[in-house]
Structures are given as C-alpha cells and as structure tokens.
C-alpha cells in the first residue's frame, strides 16, 4: 500500500465531515438565524429553556463536540504537501502543526460553553447569559490561528519555487483573501448590532462562509495534489 493511499482515506473523510458540520450548523437553533447579542438575559435564558430548542442545542453541540477537531487531519495533509515543497527548512510545516494544535482547541472551548449553558437552563438567567456570551465570543473572535494558517500556507506556496509547484499560485492568493475576510471578526466585542456584532454580516456570514469555502477549496486542491503525487509515485515504481 502506498503512503498516499492512507492520505486519500483521510482526505475522503472530509466530505463526510463537511456534511456533519453542515448538519450541526442547521440543527443548532442559534445559527441559521444567529442569536443577537442584544438579547436580554431573560430572552437568552428563554432560548435555552424553550423545549423546542433545548434538544436541538444539546444534540447539535454533542455532535460538534465529536467532530470539531475533524479539521486536524486536513491540516496534517496540508503539512504533508508543504513538506514536498522546495523549501530549505521545515519552518512552514512546523507552523501549520502549531496552528493545528492551537486552533481546534478554541472551537472545542466554545462548544463546551454552549453545552454548559444548555445543561442547566433553569439557572439564573444572568449565568446563562454569561455562558452564552463566552460561547459566542470564543466562537466569533478566535480567528488568529485561521488567519495564521492561511497566511503561512500562502507564504509557503509563494516560496515553493520549482518547475511544477505543489499548489498553483492562485491557491496562495485565495488563502490571503480568506485571511483578510476573517480579520473583522476579531472586533466582535465592539458592537452589539451591525456588521461586526457576532450575528453580523462580516463576523458571522462572511467569516463562516470563508471558513467553509476554504475547507472546500483546500479539499479539492489537496485531492488534486495527492492524486498527482500518487501518479508520480506510480510511474517511479
């Protein structure tokens, strides 16, 4: 069995994960029409107490708890491709490993706050509001590692100077664009309404669509790269 076969198995997990993530997104009642930060403590508590919502919150977040770290294999595959690039040092592959170790932990943390908020919805509404705030701010503002992994990947691609580069230059441009799209989300605390509030156009829609798009595009170009590598290995063998 070739090394790339295992990588392809990891890669083909991605569509399944994407379906799960999309299902979580649709199942969680606070996402499709994102919860507004202007909701009062009573409204937030009522949201969690609502017998319509509660099971959906719990089950969606339990599933998210299972699969939020599913992004790590994708990053590991990117690391494997960066290693094939014409670099002199493993700096970029190390950096992506560091991003992989740091980033998903944060999503897991947001997930835990949501689950905790839903665990005892009958508690003091102020406490539920606090947990809800922690969950949303963690989820929305933590773009640092996502930005970093896109920028580092772009740098790695730009410096991959060989006749047949691992990724086309447009992948690097695309990554920089994605990184730029995520920047406004970190200002989430500044506004309760408008585009940078956590339910706003920039923070919620642009950023999450950017993440989704990034996963989709990287999945496709990774697939191309791995299949090409596999063919090359086949010829060599």
């Amino acid at each position, binding site marked *: 069995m070739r090394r790339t076969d295992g990588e392809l198995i990891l890669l083909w997990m991605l569509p399944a994960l994407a379906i799960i993530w999309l299902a979580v997104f649709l199942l969680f009642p606070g996402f499709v029409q994102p919860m507004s930060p202007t909701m009062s403590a009573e409204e937030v508590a009522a949201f969690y107490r609502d017998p319509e919502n509660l099971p959906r919150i719990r089950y969606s977040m339990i599933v998210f708890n299972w699969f939020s770290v599913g992004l790590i294999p994708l990053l590991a595959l990117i690391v494997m491709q960066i290693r094939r690039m014409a670099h002199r040092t493993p700096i970029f592959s190390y*950096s992506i490993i560091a991003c992989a170790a740091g980033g998903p932990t944060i999503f897991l943390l947001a997930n835990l706050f949501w689950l905790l908020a839903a665990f005892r919805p009958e508690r003091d509404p*102020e406490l539920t509001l606090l947990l809800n705030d922690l969950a949303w701010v963690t989820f929305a*503002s933590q773009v640092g590692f*996502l930005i970093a992994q896109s920028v580092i990947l772009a740098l790695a691609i730009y410096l991959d100077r060989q006749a047949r580069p691992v990724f086309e230059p447009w992948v690097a441009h695309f990554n920089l664009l994605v990184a730029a799209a995520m920047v406004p989300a970190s200002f989430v605390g500044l506004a309760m309404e408008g585009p940078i509030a956590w339910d706003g156009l920039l923070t919620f829609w642009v950023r999450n669509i950017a993440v989704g798009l990034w996963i989709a595009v990287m999945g496709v170009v990774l697939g191309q790269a791995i299949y090409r590598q596999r063919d090359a290995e086949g010829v060599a063998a």
Partner: protein
Amino acid sequence: MSASATGALPEEPPGSLLHRIAWHWRYDPKRELWIAWWTMLVFYQLFGLLFFVVTRTQPPPQPWWEPTRVAQWFDDHHYGLLIGFAFVFIISGMTALMNALIAYSMRRMSVSRAFAYSYLVIYALSTLPGMLLLGIALTVGAMRPDRDPELIRWIYDFAFMTFDGTMGVFLVGSLVWMVAILLDENRVLPKWFAYLSLCNALTEVVVAPAWIFKSGVFAWNGAISYWLNVGVFVTYTTVFLTLLRRMILREDFGTGPLPDLSTDEAPEPSGSVRAAG
C-alpha cells in the same frame, strides 16, 4: 536541498528598504528563517504595546478589588480592552511561526526530533492560557458593563488567573529546550542559554502563590510573583531573540556543527562546505 544554491549569490543591493526586502525574498536562502525571526521580533513588540499601552492589562490591576471597583475598571478600559484584544486575536497566530523557529533550532541540533515536536505542541497549547483566554474573558466582560458586578469579578478572576497563573506549559517548554541544548553537539545555541532556561523555568514556579494570595508580594501583581517573573522573562526573551538571530546568520543548512560567525557578522558563502568536515 542543494547546497550549490548558496554558492553563487548575487550581492545584496544597497537600495531602499523595500528593495532590500524584495531582494531577500527572491535570493536569500535563509528567507524562511528570517520570516520567522522577524515575525517573532514584531510579535513581541506588538504584544508589549497591546498589553501595556492599549489594553493596559499589564501590569495587572489589583486582585483584592471589590466587585463594584472591578466593574469600574471595566468601564474605564472599555474601548482599550475591546480594540486591544481584537488586535491580540489577529496577531495570536504569529506564535505559530515563532514556535516553529524555536522548534527548528532543536531540529538543527544533534538531538532527537522528539524535542522539537514536544516544544512545538507545548507552546501551541500555551497561547490559549497564555493570552487568548484572557482576551476572550475580558472581551466578554467589557461587552456588557451592566452585568451583575459579582459576575464581572468572576470574569476578571478568570481572565487574570488563567493568564498570570499558568505555569506548566512555559516550565516544561523551557526545560525541553534546555535539555536539547545541553545534549546538542552542533553548537546551535550556547550552553549558558540552557542554564538561563533553567532560571526561567524556576521563576515560573514562583508564580504559583498567585493562586493563594489576593494581596502582597505573592499576588498576581505582586513584586515576586509578577515583577520579578516579568523581569526574568523579558531578559530571557531578549537573549533568545539575539541568539536565534545569530543562529540564522551561522546557519549552513548542513547537519554538522554550526560554523562560528565571522567577525563582520556576514554569513560565509563557503559555510555549507565547512559543514561537511
């Protein structure tokens, strides 16, 4: 990688800063290392600026304040916190490149890769308690000034205790680096720096009483638990920035001992040849 690429290097042109950067981007064989090193330098400058000037969360406020005083503090620092931490979140990913550079220093040593990987993962983890939890908590606190002061103080404690009271990642990380340097035979970093890492690790231990005392020298902003620790950490950081720069200058992309730096601090073109010996 072929060492011949280092052989015929065009001379660095004297032009403007932008020209020089463009030249390095095109020709410098050490560009990856330099990107990481400059990221590290810029990160520490921004980190100092954001924490000491913009958010004014360093030096930390008093741990013994009553809830209403804490709420007042959040009021006074509202925009500083929200804007400052937004920038902290944006730059937080820079730590990945920095840790990669330090991990690379261990990879260049004559020790097992396990050291580089341990350091990389430990420090990737350290960003969370090291600054992100603080930022998340204080953003949540500053967002709603009308919250119950008791809850605001809980947020405040959560923020500062996770930030000031997290020791293990830095402790074990420093020790991993120390052992790697002591075992190394490639002279990547000097041995005295390894012993300095031990000093740094020992001052991490000294922070522990911050979990017990709400005032005095052992509190989270106390003379011993905070100021001495910060003094040692700043010294340590300055030293390793300098040493990593020298390491990059000496780098020959070989696997043997790193050559010495020639007196004018310029990398020797024949460095890669010497490594073979």
